[in-house]
């Protein structure tokens, strides 16, 4: 197996599979098995091994760090259906099989937004909730004229349906490690190429004709539906567990463009918001040491 090196990156101490609702999910752990658990939840189109550099910092501080590949991502099973509620049910399945006590949960991007909803629905699972640039705000589309919105929706729907007609035979494009890393750089423009090359070796598989991301080829960017991102923010003010949000100040393709003033009024009582002015969406990768230290300090002072 080819594995690139990246300073500070460590393979998980344990990797195993769990079944949730019949779906096989890959779980990765760093740190002592007997330490108290802390959960990391990755974002859309990412996978648990993107925590290879961040997780060991938390594990070294005495946590059993547990992350899983969401269905269709990383080493988890590719399913027929994907959905927001299904991702939350999968999370409950993994968390519930690790512990039945409240534990800290750190979610990045979509993983952060998923955990806001789970913390609202099942608060007893959370001792703390930490959100890394996964704070949704008002959808920019809402401000566009009605006829423009209708036209944009039509394009989104047609594109998505055309994609669904061919997903049964679709596969990800093969390439060299360097080609996959450079492709990912389009969506992760602020991350070092060396890190993206490392990710290829843990998030892609090597076929006879080259490397392919393990991500299910039926998944695609964009999409449409009745849910509005700003509705997730309505679940924030009522959260009862200690809450820390870290908001990226630098906008980039995978970010959500949320501005501090849009979220400050939605914070739960006593909740904290750190605005990282010079950092992009992948805060825990760009400034891994600082973000890990902030998380650990927050856990220490609120426990």
């Amino acid at each position, binding site marked *: 197996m080819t594995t690139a090196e990246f300073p500070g990156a460590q393979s998980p101490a344990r990797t195993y599979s769990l079944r949730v609702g*019949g779906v096989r999910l890959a779980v990765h752990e760093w740190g002592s098995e007997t330490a108290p658990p802390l959960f990391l939840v990755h974002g859309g189109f990412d996978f648990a091994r993107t925590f290879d550099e961040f997780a060991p910092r938390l594990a070294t501080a005495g946590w059993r760090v547990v992350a899983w590949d969401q*269905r269709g991502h990383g080493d988890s099973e590719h399913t*027929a259906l994907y*959905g927001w509620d299904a991702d939350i049910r999968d999370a409950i399945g993994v968390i519930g099989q690790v512990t039945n006590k409240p534990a800290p949960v750190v979610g990045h991007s979509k993983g952060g937004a998923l955990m806001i909803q789970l913390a609202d*629905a099942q608060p007893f699972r959370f001792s703390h909730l930490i959100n890394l640039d996964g704070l949704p705000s008002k959808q920019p589309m809402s401000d566009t004229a009605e006829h423009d919105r209708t036209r944009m929706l039509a394009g989104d729907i047609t594109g998505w*349906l055309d994609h669904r007609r061919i997903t049964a035979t679709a596969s990800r494009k093969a390439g060299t490690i360097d080609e996959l890393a450079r492709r990912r750089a389009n969506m992760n423009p602020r991350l070092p190429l060396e890190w993206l090359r490392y990710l290829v070796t843990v998030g892609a598989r090597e076929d006879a004709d080259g490397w392919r991301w393990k991500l299910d080829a039926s998944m695609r960017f964009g999409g449409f539906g*009745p849910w509005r991102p700003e509705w997730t923010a309505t679940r924030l003010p009522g959260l009862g567990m200690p809450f820390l949000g870290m908001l990226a100040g630098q906008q980039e393709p995978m970010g959500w463009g949320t501005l501090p003033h849009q979220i400050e009024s939605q914070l739960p009582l006593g909740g904290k918001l750190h605005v990282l002015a010079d950092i992009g969406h992948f805060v825990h990768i760009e400034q891994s040491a600082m973000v890990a230290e902030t998380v650990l300090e927050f856990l220490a002072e609120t426990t």
Partner: protein
Amino acid sequence: MNTDLLTHNKVRLALHQLRPGTGRALLLLHGLGEASPNEPPPWTKRWVGPVYGLDFTGHGMSTVPLGGGYSAETLLADADIALAHLGEATLVGRGLGAYVALMITGARPRLVRGAVLCDGPGLWGGATGPASSSFVNIEPPYSAPDPNALVELSRDLRPPDYAQLFARLAVEHSGLVEPIAVAAVVRPPWLAAVTDEVGVVCCSLDDALAGFATAVSRPDVG
């Protein structure tokens, strides 16, 4: 009854030909927890084209996938896979199938030659905006109808303005003056909003089918 198995991602969709015929197909979309009928319903008697019924994912003879993850948008894609096979069709949807019929009429306005929205299971759907949520994992084995489908599709969000967008797309791009007929007696908020749209007519199922059988396109569209 002849059945074709169509492929939608990892799901095999059962599309049943309930009656052969010549001309445009009539496609029936069932309600939540139902399946396609085995025989053409009596009200299809005057339709001269073939009559088909689709089993949505997790229903009837279609695949019951593991782990759920259903949305009305997934069923919209099921209907689109059927249209890719049939070409132009007129739709009759019951309950949840009525909501899907509305969506696909807006999404594929040149393929759908009129949709009739009827009462049936799953017509209401879930909340119209954010609501308290609950999550229960249902362990397999499952059989049709998939219990995950029954849970997830009975509470899918149905904001009225979202449903209206599909009605507007249908009216703007279908070429029919009135591409959507509401035969349902019950009008949940999404359907009440759709009913208020220009180009949506309220009438009986029989009248709607008679109208769509002879429908002509508006001269200003394609």
